[in-house]
């Protein structure tokens, strides 16, 4: 997936001279995960540059670049390092179009690796997407496959509004597939049907999609047909696809690795409860991380992140209701 992201960044920089890319260690080093490998050498230090170690500075400067007509792509080294920039994000990022009545807008992308499952050090595995989805005026996109990562990232860069683009660390090198060559976009706000089924709808995004796919395989061995929806983008959310599926299956399990309380799983579950109660044969079940900081304890951290077993259990639970 990391190669697909690098490919998308290359194409965007090639295509549009107003695209620029910056962050900590993105230039000479090519990013801690090599997502920006070779880009500075190819496009120069003006358009691809290393910044001081200052997240508020990175996001704030990016906002200024975007206001002034560039298409800034800011890399935050880890999603858990976004917090120093929260003032910029909460106070400004999503408000420009609104508070200038359309006079200014902010075609900015903030990329960040997120999530657990690879035994990163403390505070490197956070999933703060719900905090950001809660901010009006900003979009949140989280791909789960390399070809989606490429197409969604190019769509995010093309988008005239600010987009958070979170990349599951777990998927950077573990998922591989043939990615189409050349420039293409995957529209934001359209979910992907990852697996068709009839008994239960499972909704996930990012790093959880492969976990749910394994759970679906396991369930299939027991004769349970799982429909798996990869949400792809949280804001805008493709409610329609989710509701259509729930209308068909009557059961829903929502899976995220972020903490449970006020997590995005709650948003999806509430939407289903509000819009599709008549179709439901069972309460919507959430499978999530816990309301505790992500544990950087190698030996036990795998208990935090939802795994196929936990998801399969939830699937059985909604079917047994």
């Amino acid at each position, binding site marked *: 997936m990391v190669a697909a992201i690098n490919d998308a960044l290359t194409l965007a920089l090639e295509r549009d001279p107003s695209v*620029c890319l910056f962050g900590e260690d993105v230039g000479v080093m090519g990013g801690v995960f090599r997502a920006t490998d070779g880009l500075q050498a190819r496009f120069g230090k*003006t*358009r691809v*540059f290393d*910044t*001081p170690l*200052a997240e*508020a*500075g990175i*996001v*704030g*400067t*990016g*906002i*200024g*670049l*975007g*206001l*002034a*007509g*560039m298409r*800034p792509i800011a890399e935050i080294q880890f999603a858990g390092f976004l917090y*120093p920039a929260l*003032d*910029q994000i909460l*106070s*400004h990022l*999503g408000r420009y*179009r*609104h*508070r*200038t*009545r*359309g*006079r*200014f*807008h902010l075609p900015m992308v903030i990329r960040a690796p997120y999530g657990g499952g690879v035994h990163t050090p403390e505070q490197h595995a956070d999933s703060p997407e719900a905090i950001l989805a809660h901010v*009006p*005026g900003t*979009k949140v996109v989280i791909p789960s496959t390399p070809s989606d990562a490429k197409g969604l990232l190019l769509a995010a860069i093309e*988008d*005239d*509004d600010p987009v958070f683009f979170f990349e599951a660390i777990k998927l950077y090198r573990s998922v591989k597939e043939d990615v189409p060559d050349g420039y293409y976009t995957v529209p934001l*706000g359209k979910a992907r049907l990852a697996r068709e089924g009839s008994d239960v709808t499972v909704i996930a995004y990012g790093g959880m999609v492969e976990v749910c796919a394994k759970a679906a395989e396991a369930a299939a061995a027991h004769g349970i047909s799982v429909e798996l929806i990869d949400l792809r983008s949280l*804001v*805008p*959310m493709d*409610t*329609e696809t989710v509701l259509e599926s729930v209308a068909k299956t009557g059961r829903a399990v929502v899976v995220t690795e972020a903490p449970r309380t006020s997590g995005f799983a709650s948003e999806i579950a509430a939407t289903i409860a509000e819009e599709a109660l008549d179709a439901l044969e069972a309460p919507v079940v959430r499978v999530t991380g816990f309301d505790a900081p992500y544990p950087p304890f190698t030996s036990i951290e795998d208990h935090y992140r939802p795994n196929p077993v936990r998801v399969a259990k939830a699937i059985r639970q909604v079917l047994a209701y």
Partner: protein
Amino acid sequence: MSELLQIIGPGGEAVRPELLPEPALLEQLYRAMRRIRHFDERAVILHRQGRMGVYPPFGGMEASQAGSALALRRSDWLFPTYRDSGAALTYGMPIERCIAYWRTSPHGWSMPEDLKLLPFYVPIATQYPHAVGAALAEKMRGTDNVAMAFIGDGGSSEGDFHEALNFAGALNAPVVFMLQNNGWAISVPTSTQTKATDLSLRAQGYGIPGVRVDGNDIVAVYHAALEAVTRARSGEGPTLIETVTYRVKPHTVSDDPGRYRTEEATRTWLERDPVRRLKTFLEGRGLWSEEREVALEAELMAEFEQAVERADAFPEPEPVEILEHVFKEPTPALRRQREQILEELRG
């Protein structure tokens, strides 16, 4: 302590005659100060009449605001804080838009398309990094446009201030950082805010020039701002300018400074009034007269009254406007929420 740049002293005497600009420019500086003072005074009156919301006056800081904004071209950027109505108006913000802003109307958020003016910044110091970014963008596009941002002494305690100075230095951004040291962050005096007594020295830590100016001497402010703007245009990077001035007015019209300060210091500063200072100087040189003052007053009165009429004519915003301009295309959720508002309105 750096040297305090002063060209015209508190009594209206030329301290650095070699730095005096042409009479025509002196008159322009004076008119600009008078114009924003008129606005400031009328705004407070409008508030008392219930025709304006909460308003943060800048009276006494006219030299700092007009002197710096006049150094800009229309193609430059201006990032003002909520106390910088004066700078925004000098730069080109239409008066009716400024009134509308302080009436909390969305019409105060709309700016002329050709003006790179941002709405007044409320979260403290957040505008500094934005100015760095805008300046960098101009540099990337190969223009010689610059960005100017304002901050107060309180704002210079924020992390964003320091990050922006460092960014601007490291990336050689064509930006002018105005730091209006007006002595107060609401009720907190600068001496409580920081142990530093010379805020312009902070620039040194980031490897950029820092200049300390008498903020009540518009000639000095303009001189320093123009030098900084010129340096930025020619690729020499950022400058920090501290204008030493005073907030003689309350923090906002709803603030009572009597709770936290004596009027003694304020009286001292009133004697250093920037408008009177230049007027005295101009009169002494035969460049200004009472007749011209009366004519100017009438001109400003008419301009302001017409702007009030235009502001009064702005339509009241519709409730659904709350949901407008969130995204280029409203999301399905926003569309549903818009329907909800309309439904509630239908009752």
